[in-house]
């Protein structure tokens, strides 16, 4: 493997309860917002998001790997669904 092509990526993995799955936290937050007077809010879903820094040869490769991580560890496929986005990290941001 050559390092030349490899570069740094930031994958954002977003995990939410599947449609139909009970989301008690979202409901409690909805109630809380209601108490605070945000009556315009009709629904809240509570999820988790992971920012994963990784090296990969290309955006596609980074996406493939991040997808696998999401499947294997970051989400629970029985009750959750996930989505993944990838962006390059420039060296100064790191």
């Amino acid at each position, binding site marked *: 493997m050559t390092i030349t092509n490899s570069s740094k990526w930031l994958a954002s993995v977003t995990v939410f309860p599947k449609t139909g799955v009970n989301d*008690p*936290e979202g409901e*409690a*937050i909805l*109630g*809380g917002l209601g*108490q*605070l007077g945000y009556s315009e809010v009709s629904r809240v879903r*509570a999820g988790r998001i992971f920012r994963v820094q990784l090296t990969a040869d290309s955006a596609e490769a980074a996406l493939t790997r991040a997808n696998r991580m999401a499947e294997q560890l970051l989400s629970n496929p029985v009750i959750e669904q996930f989505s993944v986005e990838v962006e390059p990290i420039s060296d100064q941001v790191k």
Partner: protein
Amino acid sequence: MIGVITFPGSNGDHDALHSLIDDIGAPAEYVDYRQTDLARYDAFVLPGGFSYGDALRCGAIARFAPVMAPLAEFAERGGPILGICNGFQVLTEAHLLPGALLRNETLKFHCFWTHIKIEQLDNAWTAGCKAGEILRLPVAHGEGAFFADDDTLDQLEANGQIVARYCEPDGTITPGANANGSARSIAAVSNRQGNVLGLMPHPERATNELVGGADGVKIMSSALNFLNVAV
């Protein structure tokens, strides 16, 4: 009269009330989170539990309950308030106490008996202790790691707001005794004036030898002395 404030999902309210009435002999009653007239109370306990199911952050939603605004005024006037566990979390969320409580370092809820060393007596709730006294109290929480940035921590130290730290049975402060990963082993902090105290361990569960210990009497009865003096 001591008010024990109950939020939806509070579950340590019963223990606080029972401890105050039956073990300490203090007059106490529940105060509903919707109540806004607090005139009849001399002190408040915010008990442990899972207010609003710990949704979002522990204490984040309870902090906006109707009772909280008059409670903040009560605090402002120097009235004694004790926040235990979830009550501590509510008080930090409400900015009546500094810092925040993060998830335990282990990422797990844990329940066991700990030792804490009392470092400050100059407040409503530890005035009955001796300087350096070691209390054995149970903890039961998933998010008890006290956090504040370094500047804030230095200030808290300087102001004498760090009231107790986790320690070994002999009083030494070690990483091993700091099971939840609190900054500087902090187990209890007060506000600047010393009338509001928050702590993660449960003094109200330790006011009777039959259930494991009575060191909590020192804290639960403190306000009583304070009130007697004050009245």
